[in-house]
C-alpha cells in the first residue's frame, strides 16, 4: 500500500533515479556563448553580482511603484478638495 507512494516520493526527490545519483555538479564546463563564459569566470563572483542586482532591481521596482501610488493618492486628494 505504501510502497508505490514511497517510490513516487523517492522519484520526486530524485533519490532512486540513477541520473541524479552520479551527478557531480558543474566543473569547468565550456559554454558556447561568451556571455555565459564570463558569468562562469572569476570563481563565479558574477553570479553573486547577478543575484544581488536581481534583488536590488526588484526592490527598486517596488519602491518606484509605491512612490507613484502615493503621488496618485495625493493628486486625487488635491483634486477632490479643489
Amino acid at each position: 500500500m505504501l510502497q508505490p507512494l514511497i517510490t513516487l516520493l523517492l522519484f520526486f526527490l530524485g533519490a532512486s533515479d540513477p541520473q541524479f545519483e552520479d551527478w557531480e555538479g558543474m566543473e569547468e564546463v565550456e559554454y558556447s556563448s561568451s556571455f555565459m563564459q564570463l558569468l562562469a569566470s572569476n570563481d563565479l563572483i558574477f553570479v553573486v553580482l547577478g543575484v544581488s542586482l536581481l534583488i536590488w532591481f526588484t526592490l527598486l521596482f517596488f519602491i518606484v511603484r509605491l512612490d507613484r501610488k502615493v503621488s496618485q493618492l495625493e493628486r486625487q486628494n488635491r483634486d477632490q478638495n479643489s
Partner: protein
Amino acid sequence: MQVSAQQKIKLSPWKYAVAVWLTVVISAGFLIDIPMIPILLETSRNLFLHVPMWFTMIAIFFAGLVYSIRYLSNGRLDMDIHAETATAVGIVFGICGLLTGAMWARFTWGSWWTFAEPKLNLSAMAMMIYVAYFVLRSAFDDPEKRAKVAAVYNIFAASTIPFLLFIIPRQLPSLHPGADGNPAFSDLTAPELRWIFYPAVIGFIGLGWWMKDILYRYKKLQQKLETESV
C-alpha cells in the same frame, strides 16, 4: 472618483539618481579587485554594505533630531511627522546593520553575537532606546501632546548615539576596526576600499531618504484624511 486626465506621474529626478548611483556602487563593490586580508578574504566587500547601514541610520536619526527640535521651536505638526518617519526608517537601517553584522561575525569571528564586543551590545541598546520612542508615541492619543513628548524624548535618544556608537566603544578592546582609540580606517583596511565605501554611504543615505519621503507623504495624507472625516 475621477483621476485628473491620467497624467504620467514622474518621480523627482534625485530619486532616479539614487537608483542609478546605488546600482553602479553595488556592481563596483563586487567587481573591483580587493586585497585578500587574512580571515576576512572576500568578506571585506561587506564594508560597502554593512557599514553604510550604520552611517545611514545615524544620518537619518540626526535628521529626525533636527525635525524634533524644529517641532519644539515652531509647533507645526508636520515637523512631528517628519521626525517620526525619519526615526522609523533609521530603525529599519539599524536592524539591517545588526543582522548583516551578525552574519559577517559568524564567518570571521566565529559567532553570531558576542557579549564581549562592546559595539554589538551598545548598538543593540541604541536600537532599543529608539524602539522606546515608538512605544512612547503609542501611549498618547492627543497629537499635540504626543508630538511634544516624542520630540523631547527624541532629543534624549539622539544624544545617546555618539556615546553608544563612537565614544564608549573606542575606549574598550573590540574586534571591530576602530577600537582602542584608533580611527576605523587603519592599515587593516586597504585604501582602495574607500573608493567604493564613501559613495556607498551616500547612496544608501539617498535610499533611506527616499523611503522616508514615501512614508512621510503617506502619513501626511493619512492625517489629512482623518481631519477631513471628523
